[in-house]
Structures are given as C-alpha cells and as structure tokens.
C-alpha cells in the first residue's frame, strides 16, 4: 500500500532552529529514511517552505478566490511529506515512530493511504 505521511509541527520552533540543530536533525532523519530508500520503498520526500509563502485557491461563487496563507490556520503547520510504499499500516506507523524519535519537540505524522492518480514525469 502507498502511504502519504504528512508531517506537522510548530513552525515557529522549527524555523528558530540554529543551523547546527537543523543539520543534526536532518542527518538523523536521513538515517531513518536510508533502509526504506535502499529497499526501493521511498517515493519523493518534500520539505515545504514556510507557510508565509503559501497561497490558497478556494472555489468561490463566480470565480476561484486566491487567498494568502495556508488553507487552515492550525497550531501545527504542515511542514513536509513523505510518499512511501509499506506492507501495511503497522510498518508505516513504525516508520513514523522512528521519525518522531529523532525529531525534537512536539510533532505529529498523519498517515494517509493513497493511490497514484497519475505518476507524472517530473524530473527531480
């Protein structure tokens, strides 16, 4: 099953990390990802720019409205995502628990099974 893993955390804290803190967390996250990448189970992984760069397009009465900022104003912002092929939910949960362990502070991971609507041909 394909899973999207949506990573939520407190944006102000994450963007207050020093460069050293940031690098330390990222290298630990890469260590967690490595076995899945080697097994060919890991799809694109994205880091989102700050929510201040976000634009939301919302269906309006006549034409769509373009709104500055993210779709929902939540305490924890969507800061990144994984796409991963796991045998079952158990494995996806285990993966998130590993991510969570190396991520300092409060963070949550929403696991959402998905299917490929269109594979796309973006070179990354």
């Amino acid at each position, binding site marked *: 099953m394909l899973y999207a893993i949506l990573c939520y955390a407190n944006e102000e804290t994450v*963007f207050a990390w020093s460069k050293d803190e940031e690098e330390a967390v990222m290298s630990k996250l890469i260590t967690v990802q490595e076995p899945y990448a080697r097994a060919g189970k890991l799809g694109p992984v994205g880091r989102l720019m700050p929510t201040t760069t976000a634009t939301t397009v919302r269906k309006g009465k006549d034409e769509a409205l373009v709104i*500055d900022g993210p779709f929902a104003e939540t305490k924890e912002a969507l800061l990144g995502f994984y796409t991963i092929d796991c045998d079952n939910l158990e494995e996806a949960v285990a993966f998130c628990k590993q991510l969570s362990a190396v991520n300092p502070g409060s963070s949550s991971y929403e696991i959402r099974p998905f299917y490929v609507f269109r594979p796309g041909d973006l070179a990354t």
Partner: protein
Amino acid sequence: MTDLAWIDTTLAAARPRALGALLRYFRDLDTAEEAFQEACLRALRSWPDKGPPRDPVAWLILVGRNSGIDAVRRGARLEALPDEDLISDTGDAESDMADRLDGSHYRDDILRLMFICCHPDLPATQQIALALRIVSGLSVQQIARAFLVGDSAMEQRITRAKARVARAGVAFQTPGAAERAERLSRVTTMIYLVFNEGYSQSDPKRDACAFADEAIRLARLLLGIFPSEPEIMGLLALMLLQLSRRAARFDAEGQIVLLEDQDRSRWNREAINEALALIEKAIRHRQPGPYQIQAAIAALHARAIRAEDTDWTQIELLYRTLEHVQPSPVVTLNRAVAVAKRSGPVEALDMVEQLAGALDGYFYFHGLRGNLLMQLGRNHEARTAFDRAIALARSPAEAAHIRLQLDRLKADAETSLG
C-alpha cells in the same frame, strides 16, 4: 538536539506571542516580562518530565498569567501559589482556553509588542536594542557584546528606553485600520534597522551578524499574522535575498567581495527561492512599495547566473520606479550604477555629479565617482575622489576596498610611465 536545547528554542520562539498577550493582560511591561520569565522557569521544571505541551504559547500565557496575578496578589497579601499541574495536565484544554481568551487578539498583541519598541523619540540604535531585548528576548549581555559596549552601559540604555516607552503610554484598545497600518509601517522599518545592524557588519565573526537572522524571524512572524500585506512580503524577500549572499560577501582575508566578483555558487539557493516565491505573491496584490521594488531589484541579481547576465535595463527601470515612490539621492546614486553598466560611464558620471551637494559626506558617492572617473581615464580626479572616500569609510574593509582601487591607479601610472 537535547531536550533542554529544544525547550530553549521553543521558549524563544513562543516569546513574542506569549509576552504580547501578557502585556495586554497586565498593561505593564515589567510585570508582563516577570510573568513570562516565571512561566519559562516552570516550563523548564515541568516539560522535561511531562513532555512538551501541544501548544507551548497557550501554556506559557496561562501559566504566566496565573503567576503574574499571583505576584500582584503577593504584593498585597500572601496567598498560595496556584499549581501549574492543573494547567499542564489538561492537554489540549489550555489551547481552547487560550483561544477563547485571545482569539484574534494575537496579531494585535504581537504588533503592539513590536510597536512599543519603535517610539519615534528613540534613536535607531535604541529601537534596535529594545526590540532585541523585549521581542526577541536576547540578554542584555548578548546585546552589549554585539554593540561592543559594556553590560552596564547597555543595561542603562535599555532601562532608559523602557522608561521613555512607559512614559509615552501604550494604546491597549484594538487599533483601527489606519492606526494598524501606521503601526505596521513603523514596525517594518524597525525590523529592517535590526537587519541592517547585522548585515552591515564587515566582520563576519561579530555577534551582531546574528541580528540579520533575528530580523528575518521577526518578519516571518509579522507576515504570519498579516498574511496579505505585500510590503511585509517585500521586506522579507529583500532581507532573504541580501542574506543569501552572506557566504560570498567576504574573502578569506575579510575583504569585501563586490557583487559582480562574488562566487555565485555560494549564494544560498533556499533563501533565494523562498524570496522569489514571496515576490511572486506580493506582485499579485498590485500595490508596489519600496520594499517590494528593492526586493525585485535584488531578485534580478539573484536570477543572473553570471554577473554579466544581469538585466541592468530592468534594474535601471526599477530604480526609476523607486525614485518615484521614495525619492532620495541615494536611490539616484544606485540608478547611476545601473546606468553605468547599461550605457557606460559618461552618462552615469553626469548623473553622479548632480548629486555632489546632497551626498558629499557619503562614502559610496565618492567611491562610485572615483570608479567612473577611472573608467574614463581621468586618473588624477579619480585619485582625489578615492582619497575622499577613504576618509569617509566606516570600516577597515571599506577603506581596504578603496585602497585596492588606488593601487590599481598607481599600477596604471607606473605601466604608462614604463
């Protein structure tokens, strides 16, 4: 990152929101700061055991509010401290409670906290020091070290500035639209002052360099609460673009490297991409302002893969727009640089000469003038201009840069003699 380091980062990140709300409750900066301090101490005791609350800001506001009220009470008669366990154990409840208490107040709270630091009676350096102390929560020692003054001198400076702010009184009622716009404009100016205090440091090891990052954090915070303000997008983009060149601005000896000579592979692409995204958003609003225009100019430099790819025609046009929006001889001087690149030194020198009266005491005026004269082979006049520039240099790096030009002139003279 250890637990404690994470808690420190979280407390620092939560400070503007939490302190802003506490200031509204207590209507007194000292009480609000004490209450916040107390809440932080309790967080350090409680969070390592219980784990971090889901909403640290709400937790700090409620605990700070209780402890602050308690401190006020203790002033009158002794009463037992409230138990913060009641708050920390409620999980998500504190978030809902704070929401009910604050709701839409958050943005005006933060704006107010920033705004009290930009009192027009305060000179720029005091506004910067106050903002770093109150909003960012840097210690007096950190600020003193960055400004290269003693701790007690900085302590005094900040105390005096605070007293001045207190005397001036702070408006606590929710501001109207015009008042809010005025506050926003003053606060954006203050944030850019903080940035420049950091960015203009010619010694990359100076503590003050960190102010530039702090300014970016403040601008992100401000844009987060006022997400549709194109000038805040412009300011944030401008600062990100300037800072993206940080690693390339100085060589190993600490000498300034001019934009055209910088190793562009060392520019921070992440910062550039974020800035470009912000500029695109800002442009959609069709309300150009000085920060957006300056950011657009910086973006044209960032987009040029090699210095010779720079679109000077477009840059010249943007400086022309900036002259309309915010006329100043310094802007015209910058346009002259673009004109020199586009059409050569004759036309540019013509523009520069007209600024002599306004910019006679300005380092860059004489530096540019000397450079244009040198390009035209008027070496004797160029030397005089460079001498004047050196006399006006504000840092050893600036002076060293002009000395290099003088050396080139000298080398030229020797070659033509030989």
